[in-house]
């Protein structure tokens, strides 16, 4: 997770590594695993936000249905590793299949929308996201594929070479809970995902995406095959969503269509925009903040009210959305390029006032 800092000092890397290793133990100290789970979800959101960042941040294609790929990945895992069909494939088979299926759906969404941009693209992708969710909800008849609104239960956890990531186990004298084990798996995957994203950004493909985002006609004029490069953005973004979905499925042991509602798509988009569109460290920060803060509010608001007034005045759940919404408005008002924008974007906003048209 420290790759984007590219620190010259070995010390920095050691420090961050130590912090990352210690984190799940610190969070699990009270015996509860709730915060470890929250951090695990934050990492899943990093995958999603980075995947969406390819489509929205790099290629400039506004996608409001991104969660559909998460759903596709989650259901692919659920169907291939649960008693629902009696299939129990291993992780090294299902995770790539999940990514491929999501990738296929990415192209499926991408191809009819190639000529659309901005608002029009947003509407179509929004519809696509809803279609997937509604399909998942209703594909229990005439042939029961998704088990409808009840969802799929008893999904296999990730297990590598007989080592299961669920349940408590002893490793090198340390007792690790299920969420703690998943944490280490997720951190390892996150490092991989971040490296892939950094490499992509500075590759030929990355530059082609940026060119399309900036000016599509000019991109064509310099020889970029805009159709293929846009499809590639959809496909790559979707694959990351698919992988995140698969792990989500395994971690929860349960999936149902309601986990993939429009608000989830909007959350992930908010992470990208709020963090700093197109800037990988910013997007990661956005994902962490937006997934941890609401939980912190959930746990903080109740006790604070009890301490101040001796009773619950406002339901923590409703206050959570209120504070969350307010935070979004304030950040966009005072940091329009996001909390941690790329240096170029920051410069653009400061220089613009001085430049002539």
């Amino acid at each position, binding site marked *: 997770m420290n790759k984007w800092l590219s620190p010259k000092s070995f010390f920095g890397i050691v420090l961050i590594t130590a912090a990352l290793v210690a984190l799940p133990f610190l969070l699990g100290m009270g015996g509860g695993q709730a915060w470890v789970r929250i951090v695990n979800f934050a990492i899943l959101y990093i995958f999603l936000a980075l995947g969406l960042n390819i489509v929205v941040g790099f290629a400039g294609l506004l996608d409001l249905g991104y969660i559909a790929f998460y759903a596709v990945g989650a259901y692919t895992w659920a169907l291939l590793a649960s008693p629902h069909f009696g299939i129990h494939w291993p992780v090294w088979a299902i995770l790539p299949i999940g990514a491929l299926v999501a990738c296929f759906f990415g192209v499926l969404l991408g191809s009819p929308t190639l000529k659309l941009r901005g608002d029009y693209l947003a509407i179509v992708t929004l519809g696509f996201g809803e279609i997937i969710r509604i399909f998942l909800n209703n594909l229990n008849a005439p042939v029961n594929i998704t088990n409808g609104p009840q969802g799929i239960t008893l999904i296999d956890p990730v297990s590598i070479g007989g080592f299961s990531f669920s349940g408590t186990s002893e490793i090198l004298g340390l007792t690790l809970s299920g969420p703690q084990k998943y944490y280490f798996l997720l951190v390892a995957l996150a490092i991989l995902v971040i490296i892939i994203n950094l490499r992509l950004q500075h590759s*030929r493909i990355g*530059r*082609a995406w*940026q*060119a399309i*985002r*900036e*000016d599509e*006609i*000019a*991109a*064509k*004029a*310099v*020889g*970029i*095959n*805009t159709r293929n490069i846009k499809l590639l953005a959809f496909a790559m973004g979707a694959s990351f969503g698919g992988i995140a979905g698969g792990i989500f499925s395994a971690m929860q042991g349960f999936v149902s269509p309601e986990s993939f509602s429009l608000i989830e798509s909007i959350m992930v988009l908010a992470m990208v925009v709020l963090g700093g569109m197109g800037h990988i460290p910013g997007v990661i920060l956005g994902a962490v903040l937006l997934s941890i803060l609401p939980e912190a509010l959930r746990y903080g608001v109740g006790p604070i009210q009890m301490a101040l007034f001796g009773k619950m005045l406002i339901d923590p759940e409703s206050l959570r959305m209120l504070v969350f919404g307010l935070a979004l408005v304030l950040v966009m008002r005072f940091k329009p390029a996001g909390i941690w924008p790329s240096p*170029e*974007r920051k*410069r*653009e906003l400061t*220089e*613009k006032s*001085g*430049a*002539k*048209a």
Partner: protein
Amino acid sequence: MLEVTGLHVAYGGIQAVRSITFHVNEGEMVALIGANGAGKTSTLKAIARVIDAVGGDVHFCGEDITRIPPHHVIRKGIALVPEGRGVFPRLTVAENLAMGAFLRHDKAEMAADLDKIYGYFPRLKERAAQLAGTLSGGEQQMLAIGRALMSRPKMLLLDEPSMGLAPIMVQKIFEVVRAVAAEGMTTLLIEQNAKLALEVSQRGYVMESGEITLTGESASLLNDPKVRAAYLGE
């Protein structure tokens, strides 16, 4: 080098270009002049494959390019400097120029071409690290031309390079256009500024309501009473 035969462009039912025929010889600069809405830009866009032609065909170096995919146009050696500049605003000047060479892999030659472009436009070198979107209009036009040259094209298509620019900028840009042409670059120039265009080009075509109404040596068109009356404000 470029042969346009019976080119026809329409948007829905509106005829923008009605069956025009013209050609540009190798090493020549040809101006296509006319009023706003005469169909000049549509003609250029159809050649660059930004839009589809309804009829007619375009040959370049003997090859039919009427229906090739848009991103193949530059492979054939035709570089478009789009209307309204079309730079990549959130990329730096240097990155914009590098995008012009997107299809090239000859690093050493690219560096030499970059030096040459910085030689034409020293301003771009000064601003290499600046975002293109923060440049002035004239500088953006310089950048758009520089980017097109970075592909080392056989032919340059210029769409209204003087549009919206201060006279001093127009002068600077046309100096470079003239210098590039003097080195043998085949150029098709589209301009509303007829006087300027006819002064730098060898031959000219006058477009009116989607048709070519006049053609000839630029020098003689400049003295043509009809041209003088309609486009030079006399």
